[in-house]
């Protein structure tokens, strides 16, 4: 016999002002199977919860309904109270008479009627609830960090320093990401390499970190605590166990005219190369597409020069399979291809460059050893025009969002230029100066006041060449006049956009992304570092445009999430999962295809002598997320969802 307790909460005035709680309590008290029906001002309060527990014990209740606010608010609270009173927590149901009733209705009488319907339907449901036990799954205490930029490095170091194992996967030959390319960094103007390189070295030498560079994630299966990840080790053609990084091969390589990706095309590299001098690991790779041997079958100069026989032209891609408990995605960003702005002449005029190229010019380890020189003739420019928002905040050709860092780095560029080229003049075309952040506004003020950056508020319509000069035509909206500035060099603050393969990669790991390809957090405000998939976390610019302080802060936050996950031996999961009736399953495998989480497998049913009788669907409780897709698909009605069984839902509907 059902003995249900109904607890009707006033929520102060929130519910009681519209719903006649006394009438509701009386009506529910009369409903068959209800043993006790009471009202109270705040059931979520301490005395409120105590009264629920007391009622459970006194009346030996077999289930309870809390008629109150949304289950998102307090379901957990009341389940816990149930458990403390010795009742299985899944025998507690919430009837939402606040968000779905009192808050949205004006007529008191009708609201009371509706509250009765809602509560009654939950009473009918809870009569059919079953005792459920949380599902326990083991946790593999090993984290995978994808991306070796500053965000990935920070996350890996934080996790490893707390004593947990980390595998760090970087697709380029070296760690570093974009930060390794920067010259000096706002807002403190400290040298990027100087703060970055020690981190890279520390990561490579850390006993708890396994570093896999020139590697990519091939596939991810499994679920939180129990991912199975396959990594492709791209063939470097250099045996890392032998190579000491002496660089003899690089000096001997005759293919020397290859445009350097790291120097954004401003410098050259060889076919066997390390991206930059401080690369970690400091071991080269052969770029197969540019290698003379791979093209013509003749050369092998590098092989001959290597004293340690580290070069191996026969090397193949290899695969490594890993068991992983948590994943941190830190795959960063790329800059937008500015060639879409034909009017700025990028790609047409060599002295129109991107902000990232400017970083390489300003970098002491860059192609010009830190001198600001024009790519066209190697001369020092006397007038430089910077164009902000060259792609950002432009729904027509670029992206709609603000890239967040360009105002700051443009101010930085103007300062670096003023420090390096005395007497040089800068003009900065801008829409707004967005310098919110610690020390940021002061920084841009410094550029204007001390380094004499001249800011022009307005957009540029055209850049063209005349008598060896770049002519920049724009509008000064403060003066309300068109202006033309003569420049020796133009620097475009290009938009920060997702990696070119961001969307496909999201599908490989099974996380959600926004319209651009930035990865979605589970909740913008309350769960900003978790992805929508349990056990996968987000750090750095792969989630949205970020500067270094933000990327590092988020990376440390993911580390704390990962460590919290690893602090337990087993994970508890909600037991709301699909269950299959093997007797009636027709084995059509429609559910296998329909399940968005790949949670359904084929299971053999055999007789005593081991002969296969039939195959049926089996729901893996560790993988199932309880979405119910399969339940609605199954024609033979074999699948059902624990906690929301068809019996329960039917009773709920009939109770209305």
């Amino acid at each position, binding site marked *: 016999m059902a003995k249900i307790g109904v607890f009707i909460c006033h929520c102060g005035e929130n519910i009681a002002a519209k719903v006649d709680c006394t009438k509701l309590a009386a009506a529910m008290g009369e409903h068959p199977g209800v043993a006790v029906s009471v009202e109270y001002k705040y059931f979520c309060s301490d005395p409120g919860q105590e009264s629920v527990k007391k009622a459970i014990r006194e009346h030996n209740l077999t289930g309870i309904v809390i008629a109150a606010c949304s289950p998102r608010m307090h379901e957990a609270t009341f389940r816990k109270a149930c458990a403390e009173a010795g009742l299985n927590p899944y025998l507690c149901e919430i009837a939402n008479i606040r968000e779905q009733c009192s808050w949205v209705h004006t007529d008191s009488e009708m609201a009371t009627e509706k509250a009765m319907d809602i509560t009654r339907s939950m009473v009918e449901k809870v009569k059919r609830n079953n005792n459920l036990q949380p599902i326990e799954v083991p946790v593999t205490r090993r984290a995978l960090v994808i991306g070796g930029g500053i965000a990935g490095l920070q996350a890996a170091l934080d996790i490893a320093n707390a004593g947990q194992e980390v595998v760090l996967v970087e697709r380029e030959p070296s760690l570093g990401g974009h930060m390794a390319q920067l010259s000096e960094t706002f807002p403190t103007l400290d040298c990027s390499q100087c703060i970055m390189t020690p981190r890279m070295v520390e990561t490579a030498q850390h006993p708890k970190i396994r570093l896999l560079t020139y590697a990519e994630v091939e596939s991810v299966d499994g679920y939180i605590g129990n991912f199975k990840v396959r990594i492709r080790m791209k063939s470097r053609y250099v045996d890392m166990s032998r190579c000491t990084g002496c660089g003899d091969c690089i000096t001997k390589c005759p293919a020397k005219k290859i445009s350097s990706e790291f120097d954004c095309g401003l410098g050259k590299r060889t076919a066997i190369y390390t991206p930059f001098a401080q690369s970690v690991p400091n071991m080269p790779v052969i770029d197969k597409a540019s290698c003379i041997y791979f093209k013509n079958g003749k050369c092998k100069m590098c092989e001959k020069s290597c004293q340690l026989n580290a070069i191996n032209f026969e090397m193949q891609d290899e695969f490594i399979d890993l068991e992983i408990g948590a994943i941190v995605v830190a795959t960063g960003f790329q800059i937008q291809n500015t060639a879409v702005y034909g009017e700025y002449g990028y790609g047409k005029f060599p002295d129109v460059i991107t902000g990232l190229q400017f970083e390489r010019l300003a970098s002491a380890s860059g192609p010009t050893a830190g001198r600001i020189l024009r790519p066209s003739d190697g001369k020092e420019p006397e007038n430089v025009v910077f164009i902000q928002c060259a792609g950002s905040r432009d729904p027509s050709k670029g992206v709609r969002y603000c890239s967040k860092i360009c105002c700051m780095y443009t101010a930085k560029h103007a300062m670096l230029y003023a420090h390096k080229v005395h007497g040089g003049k800068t003009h900065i075309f801008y829409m707004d100066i967005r310098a919110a952040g610690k020390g940021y506004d002061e920084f841009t003020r410094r550029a204007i006041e001390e380094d004499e950056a001249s800011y022009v508020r307005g957009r540029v319509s055209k850049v063209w060449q005349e008598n060896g000069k770049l002519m920049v035509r724009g509008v000064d909206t403060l003066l309300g006049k068109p202006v033309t500035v003569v420049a020796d060099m133009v620097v475009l603050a290009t938009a920060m956009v997702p990696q070119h393969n961001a969307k496909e990669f999201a599908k490989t790991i099974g996380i959600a992304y926004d319209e651009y390809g930035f990865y979605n957090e589970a909740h913008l405000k309350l769960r900003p570092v978790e992805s929508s998939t349990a056990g996968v976390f987000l750090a750095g610019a792969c989630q949205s445009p970020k500067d270094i302080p933000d990327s590092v802060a988020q990376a440390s936050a993911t580390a704390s999430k990962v460590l919290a996950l690893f602090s337990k031996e087993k994970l508890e999961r909600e037991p709301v999962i699909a269950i299959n009736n093997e007797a*009636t399953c027709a*084995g*059509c495998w429609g559910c296998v*295809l*329909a399940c968005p989480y790949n949670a359904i497998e084929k299971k053999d049913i055999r007789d005593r002598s081991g002969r296969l009788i039939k195959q049926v669907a089996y729901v893996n409780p560790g993988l199932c997320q309880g979405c119910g897709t399969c339940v609605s698909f199954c024609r033979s009605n074999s699948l059902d969802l624990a906690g929301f069984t068809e019996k329960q839902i039917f009773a709920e509907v009939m109770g209305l």
Partner: protein
Amino acid sequence: MITQERYRTTVKELLANGSIKMAIGYKPGSTPDRRRPLFIRTSEEAEQLVLDSTCVQNLSGYLVSEGLLSDEKRVGIFLRPEGVRSINILAAEYQLNADQIVIFGFDSTGREVRPLDGRSAREFSGLLNELKEKPLQIYKEPLLERIEKMNAKERFDFWQEEFSRCIKCYACRQACPMCYCRRCIVDSNQPQWVNTSSHTLGNFEWNIVRAFHLSGRCVQCGNCDRACPVNIPLRLINQRMANEVLDGFDHFAGLSATQEPVLASFKKDDTETFIL
């Protein structure tokens, strides 16, 4: 006649050399224009084989009877093009292995029966793709066109009128090769989603559930509406759903044995007109 004789010889040969263990065909029924299924295991039984334009039943449902194919031996079967499509669906839904089925294909125009080329379902793919391209000509139903012209209210009244005769005998389900579930949803009574009694609500529930379960799977063989003892034009409902999935998802049921079920799969270029 010639086709019938040729096939009879072929069946005998295949039985004799052990290529098939049985052939499913037609034999005379209770009246001159009715046929009943024939299960041929010996060459004597093959003598009863009839193949003419009145052989309309889609026999493929017999293939999934419990245990028939579990010895992995091959079974022959007489099929019209719709029947071949149903073999593909049954294979795509893992109810049988298409390699075990030897097809004796035929079709008819007027009273003339002619054989179709091919022995395995795969060999019919050219023919089936042609059907997909011009389904409307082949499956043109004057009544369907009339119904399409009705407004929602008229249509509802039409079907209410038709369904009012349904006696919940489930003959339509038994006759349909796609209705192979060991337990149909109407047989599950915990909870009883579909009312068993034959009143308006229960009849609507049943016929609509069936229409949904057959959408993207019905091959328009007509077994159901021939089986219906009260002559409800059931095939029209399924034809309508077939048109929907063809328009909406470019899905023509039973094109191949590896076709993914339309309601359980997803293509990136699916139109999503139904999302408001």
